[in-house]
């Protein structure tokens, strides 16, 4: 034989002799089941994300340790200077840092997608006769679980440090709900970049460039009143500002209808614009 076969097996493989009969039974064309619904296919892909968390629990590090560090760091760094005490600052700051942490975590949607493409599993997914956006919607469903986990972790740390929301349980749930809605919508920005950019590193780079100004140039850390005019102008239209104002209001037991409306408009915009761009790119490769 002229060809050279290289041995790649690390361990001794159990000796497998393909049996024609056994293969015949699995090859017998059964009834083709009906195509799954869009929701069912998306949930199945979401289940894949859950299984991945089960097998690689380390990936939860960024939704647990990172938020805890953020809360502790900024509460004690700014608390004394910006308010009377860290505890007093926390009443203002906790909804903001929760938003910042979760919005920052959304970038892993793009990183994860980019990884899938690198590994080739995406080829199989793209040849399945299912509702086209299902794989991406499901992936973001999985990420939503991570967002909820991060929010709960931050809330727990806040409560320990003395955060006492006036809105009670319902107000807190409403705030987290708004945060999740926005993060789901915003994740579509990253699916697009995950598909367009070549490597995980470049996805990270772009994410950081977008996320740092978006989260810091907002009302998360301080009231915008002391900022220069041009910066205030940006802060005012920044969707993160609308989100933080809405979450803050909800957790304080009231509603901020204007900011919430802007927040929902921004969310719809992200899904429509980046969802469309993503699917276009997904289909066209």
């Amino acid at each position: 034989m002229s060809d050279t076969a290289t041995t790649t097996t690390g361990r001794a493989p159990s000796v497998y002799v393909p049996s024609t009969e056994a293969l015949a039974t699995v090859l017998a064309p059964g009834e083709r089941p009906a195509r799954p619904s869009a929701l069912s296919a998306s949930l199945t892909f979401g289940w894949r994300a859950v299984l991945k968390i089960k097998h690689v629990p380390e990936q939860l590090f960024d939704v647990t340790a990172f938020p805890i560090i953020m809360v502790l760091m900024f509460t004690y760094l700014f608390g004394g200077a910006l308010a009377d005490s860290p505890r007093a600052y926390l009443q203002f700051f906790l909804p903001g840092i929760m938003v910042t942490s979760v919005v920052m975590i959304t970038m892993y949607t793009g990183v994860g997608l980019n990884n899938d493409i690198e590994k080739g599993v995406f080829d199989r997914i793209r040849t399945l006769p299912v509702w086209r956006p299902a794989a991406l919607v499901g992936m973001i469903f999985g990420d939503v679980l991570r967002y909820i986990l991060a929010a709960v972790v931050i809330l727990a740390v806040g409560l320990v440090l003395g955060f006492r929301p006036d809105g009670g349980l319902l107000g807190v749930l409403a705030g987290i709900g708004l945060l999740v809605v926005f993060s789901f919508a915003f994740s579509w920005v990253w699916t697009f970049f995950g598909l367009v950019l070549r490597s995980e590193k470049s996805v990270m780079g772009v994410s950081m460039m977008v996320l740092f100004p978006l989260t810091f140039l907002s009302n998360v850390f301080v009231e915008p009143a002391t900022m220069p005019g041009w910066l205030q102008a940006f802060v005012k239209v920044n969707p993160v500002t609308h989100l933080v104002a809405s979450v803050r209001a909800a957790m304080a037991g009231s509603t901020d209808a204007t900011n919430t409306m802007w927040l929902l408009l921004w969310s719809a915009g992200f899904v429509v614009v980046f969802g469309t761009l993503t699917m276009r790119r997904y289909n066209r490769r």
Partner: protein
Amino acid sequence: MSNRNTGLAVEADGLVRSFGSTRALDGLDLRVPAGTVYGMLGPNGAGKTTAVRVLATLLRPDAGTARVFGHDVVTEADAVRARMSLTGQYASLDEDLTGAENLVLLGRLLGLARPAARERAEALLAAFGLTEAAGRQVKKYSGGMRRRIDIAASILNTPDLLFLDEPTTGLDPRSRNQVWEIVRAVVAHGTTVLLTTQYLDEADQLAGRIAVVDHGRVIAEGTPGELKSSVGSGTVHVRLRDAGQRPRAEQVLRTALQVPVQLAADPVALTARVGEDGTDLEAGEQAARALGELARAGIVVDDFSLGQPSLDEVFLALTDHPAVATDERDDALEAAR
């Protein structure tokens, strides 16, 4: 399913696809009869993978058309997807998940209810000898096991057309034989298989017809027999005990085979091309006859072998250039993945 076993599984006309300045496909035509194993043979960078990706609806062609069981791969992609599956060159399952989880997941995506998906996964794992490994993460599988679970995933939907992109590259000989057996079983069940390979003997072992691909187009097409006869199906290598007998041996071989005999640099070695056009005997018969004649002439032979022509020889014969992809072309195609 009316044309599951009749007609054409794949019909491609003038497919063109460029990546930057590299034309990966440059007017590729293909006719794959349904119910057969069809081999696409060519070196790295010849455009085989690009062709498969276009046919499997993963890439759009820049020009040309392709149909799978009569459905256009661009405008009727979903109908094509419902009837085929692809086992790519790279791991096409989620490596973090177990083998069983991967198969259940795919079963669910094909519309099976959870219990049915589980049942199907178990049956497939058993048929592919992976029951013991069912609960292990795919990244912990050996190369051969990985290939098997990949193929198992691809026949989950009992496709009418199965694409196998270099199914045995990098496998040890035993795993390669297992894959060959599986391919034979799959096609015996009426599934059309389109496989790409760099190995002539693999195409020869499995395929009913072969297309030789080079620089994005088909440069030769036919049954393995037809292709080999255009090149000569093999080379006979003889080593003698006694260098003094070589002139006599050369004479005997030339008479027996009716082909030119080359004297190698080694004073006891001779080689001859067999199975060329114009002889009516198969290479094996010719070789057997040559060995018999040598024995009858009292020539002592220490070593005698019949080798298939290598892909390089086929390429040289068909294109006048060896089957080596330029690095530049390879890189461009790799980057475009």
